[in-house]
């Protein structure tokens, strides 16, 4: 089946998706119609880590969504950045597994001597394997990284039945961001890694005055840029 209009596919963890307005699990967050699909076997607990056993499940989910007419795909866990090349090679439509993909762009706008601040779900578990998956290395990128580990949002997100609200995410993300900016006043731009953090995007931008991008920013850029009828589907139909 092919489609002639944009359709975004979101590959979700098995954890209960957060669906409050402005979140990645809410259809109104996107500039196009959206299909949500859970990835078999993918949980916060095993996606955040370094195992590769989930690659086939992400590939199968991506192929199924492409066959259903999706014109671009994202996930709801930025730690899947390490599967970016595998999934991108398996489908013809654009795929963006993680907002970490926006880091090189955001860094290229920095004036000399400034840094990019990344706020993540868990800074102890975000490593070079995730950065490499998103196409860059910490060795050459001017970034500082902070996480919300230990916070109430962090505990809730590890829970299979994830229950979050905007106020809680704003509080925990702002606290981490403040600490990072106090330690690194040279930070002049922010990338939010975690897919729950778009809920805090406006609050971070308002409080810090710094440009801030996140998963929803990227998902909308991706779906607006995608072709209405992907090349492979066209070739198959002709």
């Amino acid at each position, binding site marked *: 089946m092919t489609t002639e209009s944009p359709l975004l596919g979101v590959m979700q963890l098995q954890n209960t998706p957060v669906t409050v307005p402005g979140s990645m699990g809410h259809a109104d967050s996107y500039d196009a119609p959206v299909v949500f699909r859970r990835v078999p076997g993918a949980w916060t607990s095993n996606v955040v880590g370094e195992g590769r056993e989930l690659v086939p499940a992400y590939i199968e989910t991506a192929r199924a969504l492409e066959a259903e007419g999706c014109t671009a795909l994202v996930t709801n866990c930025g730690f899947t950045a390490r599967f970016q090349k595998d999934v991108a090679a398996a489908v013809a439509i654009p795929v963006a597994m993680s907002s970490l993909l926006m880091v090189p762009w955001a860094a290229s706008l920095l004036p000399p001597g400034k840094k990019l601040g990344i706020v993540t779900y868990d800074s102890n578990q975000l490593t070079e394997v995730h950065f490499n998956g998103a196409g860059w290395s910490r060795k050459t990128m001017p970034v500082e990284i902070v996480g919300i580990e230990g916070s109430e949002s962090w505990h809730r997100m590890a829970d299979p039945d994830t229950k979050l609200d905007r106020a809680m995410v704003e509080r925990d993300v702002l606290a981490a961001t403040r600490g990072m900016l106090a330690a690194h006043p040279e930070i002049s731009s922010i990338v939010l890694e975690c897919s729950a953090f778009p809920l805090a995007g406006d609050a971070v931008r308002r409080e810090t005055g710094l*440009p801030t991008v996140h998963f929803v920013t990227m998902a909308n850029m991706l779906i607006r840029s995608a072709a209405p009828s992907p090349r492979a589907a066209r070739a198959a139909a002709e």
Partner: protein
Amino acid sequence: MIRPLGCLRLNNGPIALPGSPTQAESYPFPVILEGVPGAWTENVTRGDRSVRDAYVESARRMEARGCAAVVTTCGFTSLFQADMAAAVSIPVASSSLLLVPFIRGLLPEGARIGILTYDATRLTDAHMEAAGWSPKEVAIAVDGAQGTESWEQMAEEQPELTVEMMNRDVGAAAERLIAKHPDIRALLFECTIFPIASDHVRARTGLPVYDYLTLARLTHEAAEAQNTATSTAARAAAE
């Protein structure tokens, strides 16, 4: 109150077509368009660095006027990216060439980015390196509108373009490039007038097209409001 995007434009006359960078309707937020003294298609695309200070001054003026971010209507101004970024405290995105490392990150191994520019004979490694990447490290292929009717019109003091002309010339360049490099998996338009043809090229080639408006929206969203959909949802939730 949404702060506007500041757009530093060439002095060539405005193009009143959907997707044109000089049409306020091309932006889903307020925009201030201001000509940069001495900047025209002809000299800027030929790498004239004498207009650098004028771009820096214009960027400062946009910041003073309350703009959230600064873009320009000529992707060849990547040459002035670092100077403009250093001169103001708001984000500056001079050229859609800045999106290349992001697009490369999206693509699988072995895939290529097709870059379509106003004039492929004038786009140099220096323009790319000033945008933060090197053609030695990124698999690209470049073609342009050089020699076409659109190319001639874009250099006119008062360009007379039509959607049909842009679709024809940009579409043909895209097809030529893809035929030569079947491993192209995404297209990037350097030229800020090419978004007039973006939807046509997306439908014609089946490939994603990243362009000047992609960059303008992303940069403004980063600095100011959320995307329209999210803002609408947030407003509805607040009511």
